[in-house]
């Protein structure tokens, strides 16, 4: 097909470029597979961590597919597009980054044999598309199980199967309840539309020291700030909170203002004005009788003095995002101009304001909120690297929790669902017309890579176990999969390994579509090649002109 010489008359002169058509495709496949091989061992409960060192000497320890691939610099363009999909998966559903890469690599791998058999890529692509569609409908209609959202035990089970493969798997009970509580806290129901914004309202704060068991979800918010003046109160019950995003300092006007002083008394008057201004602001704040004032900007010494006299605790230079979270947690409105402070703007939802010392630093806790719509997850752990990995894992867990709450449908995990889909696709493949049948069935074969890798990673006998699993599925054991700990067959229903449907769907779609994208390419023109070609045309050019004369 591609320069294979199948076409008897090629009117145009054939140059070497077209000959590289199939080579490019095989290269792309190889690149895809190479990427998949890098992170293959990170799949499943027996997964190993990777330690990555960047040029500056920083260390990342993780088994999160996306985090690993992000750190690797890849030269090959096809490899780059593989890495992109891990990111997409991470952004869209937050979990399953490793499996999407492994699956996409395998999808490319199974296409290789067809290319060498001179099958046209578009035929393969068509079959892949068809298979994807069938797989998606199968997942949605036949395999998935609806879940009752009030069933906390079941919910925890699902999150557990996600967390189980990770570093924090040892503290999975704790991690699961943290994730579930956090997500339930930030969930907002708005006319039938569920909104869960983890990025904004569930903040993970890492504090080195202590042990992981001490991690918790706060019913409120924590910021790593101390009071501005040491004499201010550090423990207030039922505080009235005022949030400001302006300074409590004297601020010049935006326009350039020059003051010409003619008299000496004018000079003191100006200084006095500045002080009066601060005093005025403070009085306005004091007028609403708050106990705590948070501001995003600075607080001058003078203002501190006034506030202290009124028995108000002030916290300065709070981040905008933190301020927003506090606003959601205690029901306050962020105010910009102090003269506009009103009674409604004061937040009274919080039950306790407290400054606590963790390790070497002071942290400000606003907890025991009545109806918090934002929360902070406090992570403790021995080292920073460990905390980073724990945070990544927790993010995955949070996303899983969110996905289930948004779309409460489950599929069995542990490779069971892949096996079931593969089985059904293989069955369906027999009815597909034409040569598309083989690539169609290849998709089914490729899906088996997930259970196969799981088996491999726990060191069991791949061939035997996989055959046994296939037999199990053929006799109707739809929910049987691999027990990732032991490498034996197990009923996923009994073992309680579940995964959210949305993650699985996204994995399949992304993997197959990427394979399609890469298979369609028959030519790579890169920066270096560009120059070669131009050299070619330049040498060819004088002959052309001379011919015309």
């Amino acid at each position, binding site marked *: 097909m*591609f320069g294979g010489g*199948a*076409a008897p*008359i090629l*009117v*145009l002169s*054939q*140059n070497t470029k077209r000959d590289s058509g199939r080579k*490019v495709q095989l290269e792309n496949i190889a690149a895809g597979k190479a990427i998949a091989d890098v992170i293959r061992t990170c799949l499943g409960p027996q997964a190993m961590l990777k330690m990555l060192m960047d040029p500056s000497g920083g260390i990342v320890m993780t088994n999160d597919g996306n985090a690993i691939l992000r750190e690797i610099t890849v030269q090959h*363009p096809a490899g*780059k597009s593989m890495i*992109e999909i891990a*990111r*997409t998966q991470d*952004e*869209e559903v937050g979990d399953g980054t490793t499996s999407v890469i492994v699956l996409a690599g395998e999808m490319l791998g199974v296409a290789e044999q067809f290319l060498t058999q001179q099958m046209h890529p*578009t035929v393969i*692509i068509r079959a892949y*598309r*068809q298979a994807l*569609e069938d797989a998606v409908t199968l997942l949605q209609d036949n395999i998935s199980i609806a879940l009752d959202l009030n069933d906390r035990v079941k919910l925890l089970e699902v999150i557990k199967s996600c967390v189980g493969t990770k570093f924090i798997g040892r503290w999975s009970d704790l991690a699961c309840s943290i994730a579930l509580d956090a997500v339930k806290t930030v969930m907002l129901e*708005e006319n039938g539309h569920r909104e869960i*914004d983890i*990025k904004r309202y569930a903040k993970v704060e890492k504090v080195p020291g202590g042990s992981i068991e001490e991690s918790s979800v706060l019913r409120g918010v924590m910021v790593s700030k101390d009071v501005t003046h040491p004499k201010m109160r550090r423990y207030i019950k039922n505080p009235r909170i005022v949030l400001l995003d302006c300074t409590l300092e004297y*601020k*010049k*006007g*935006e*326009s*350039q*203002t*020059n*003051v*010409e002083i003619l008299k000496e008394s004018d000079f003191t008057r*100006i200084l006095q*004005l500045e002080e009066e*201004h601060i005093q005025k602001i403070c009085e306005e704040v004091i007028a609403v009788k708050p106990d705590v004032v948070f501001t995003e900007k600075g607080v001058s010494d003078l203002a501190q003095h006034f506030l202290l006299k009124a028995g108000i605790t002030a916290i300065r230079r709070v981040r905008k995002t933190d301020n927003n979270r506090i606003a*959601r947690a205690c029901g306050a409105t*962020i*105010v*910009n*101009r102090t003269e506009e402070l009103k009674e409604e703007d004061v937040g009274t939802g919080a039950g306790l304001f407290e400054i606590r010392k963790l390790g070497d630093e002071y942290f400000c806790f606003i907890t025991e909120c009545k109806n918090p719509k934002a929360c902070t997850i406090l992570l403790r752990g021995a080292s920073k690297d460990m905390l980073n990995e724990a945070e990544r894992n927790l993010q995955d867990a949070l996303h899983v929790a969110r996905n289930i709450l948004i779309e409460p449908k489950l599929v069995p995990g542990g490779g069971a669902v892949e096996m079931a889909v593969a089985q059904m696709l293989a069955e369906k493949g027999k009815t597909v017309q034409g040569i598309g049948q083989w690539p169609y069935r290849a998709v089914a074969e490729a899906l088996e890579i997930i259970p196969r890798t799981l088996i491999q990673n726990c060191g069991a006998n791949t061939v035997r176990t996989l055959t046994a699993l296939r037999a199990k599925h053929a006799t109707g054991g739809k929910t049987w999969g691999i027990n990732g700990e032991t490498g034996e067959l197990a009923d996923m229903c009994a073992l309680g390994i579940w995964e959210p449907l949305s993650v699985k769907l996204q994995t399949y*779609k*992304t*993997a197959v*579509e990427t394979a399609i*994208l890469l298979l369609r*390419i028959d*030519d*790579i*023109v890169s*920066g270096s090649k*560009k120059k070669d070609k*131009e050299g070619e*045309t*330049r040498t060819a*050019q004088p002959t*052309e*002109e001379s*011919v015309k004369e």
Partner: protein
Amino acid sequence: MAACSIANIVKSSLGPVGLDKMLVDDIGDVTVTNDGATILRLLEVEHPAARVLVELAQLQDEEVGDGTTSVVIVAAELLKNADELVKQKIHPTSIISGYRLACKEACKYIQEHLTVSVEELGRECLVNVAKTSMSSKLIGPDADFFSNMVVDAAHAVKFSDGKGGFTYPVKAVNVLKAHGRSARESVLVAGYALNCTVASQAMPKRISNAKIACLDFSLQKAKMKLGVKVLITDPEKLEGIRQRESDMTKERIQKILAAGANVILCTGGIDDLCLKYFVEAGAMAVRRCKKADAKRIAIATGAAFLPSLSNMEGEDSFDANSIGEAAEVVQEVVCDDELILIKGPKARTASSIILRGPNDFYCDEMERSIHDALCVVKRVLESKSVVAGGGSVEAALSVYLENFATSLSSREQLAIAEFARSLLVIPKTLAVNAAQDATDLVAKLRAYHNSSQTKVDHAHFKWVGLDLHEGIVRDNRKAGVLEPAVSKIKSLKFATEAAITILRIDDMIRLDPEQKDKSYRDAYESGEL
């Protein structure tokens, strides 16, 4: 030769079974595409004659939007055949006049005999046209889905030009990309999608019966421009100035809100201190939205796009008339991002397509394909005539022109015959890309067209074209492989013109950039002295 090598590059991307190119630039950014114009643009061609072809593809892209690959291939083939003639000692000018004549005849023949009017075929025809354009692209397998989407989008932006005709501004269809999900989950939004978020999280995420104000200035603390200084002698007044600064914006906002606006789109910034007023009024304020977006929204919702609030008297005012209306404005989470959707604008319909795909390359390529398809649909809607695709027109023209050539007794005869032969490159390339027997298929195709033109009762054979999946010839009009007639005619014309331009050249002088080292030496010497 240069032209041929260019054509060779894009050749394999032609047709429904054409493949894609992956282009990597110096930085390492990857583009995966099937669009001829895009490929050539990214190639940075240096050779002047080849440049002409690249520009040709660009021109086709601007004029028609589709058929960029085929125009390059035809032009290159024309050149190659002309070269043969030159070797036979025929002067380029007679070739040129032959090509001109052939092109004119060909266009005439297309218009008279090969077009089908859209009215005959209805909506289905539009969908088919879009499908044909997409079939060669990445989204080919999903063509059914996308073609309907594109046709709907094109209909949504239909706009009467006041003279009974309609225009379909393709630019009014806003295409947004977001990775995640699958291509199938791309959606068409009846309204306008804006890639912005509300300025403050405390603002409502959904407003029905929205009243929209589009502002083209910043709602920031007033500030004197260009270093104007304010001189104060009385220190008491210092405070007054500061006060005034904050109040000015506040008053402006109050005016806007008082006019009833509850969605404010601002191309400039909005100060944090102003957000509170919007929050209190329950309004959505969007900062830093793109000017082009804001303008289009203004048109769609019937709002006035205000560059400032001052009226003729120099006073600040906000007229209730300049508020646009929409049924609903919602902020939705797509992937990790947030989009603002303006649904059901009152004044004119608008449409946006949100594309989803596994990664950026995929989305980019989808965007290009959608754009091509939109352009094609637009052409068909405007010109109301289509031709059969799949090499059918080319084959018909080739047969016709050959017959026409034999009727001439002048020197041009040879040139016209070559022109006819060149056109066959399209069905040939199509067949080669599909790994079919090109000779056999093209011969069959020509036979059909020959009989359709000679025998009256075989006239329906003129729709016959290639079916590349099965490798047979069939009636492409029935099969729904259609292309806009404008696209075909224009691409023929452009290709001929480009070929002629290059043919006329008999000498090339390359101006090397002036040697710099002399002036450098001067400077060096003077510096030393």
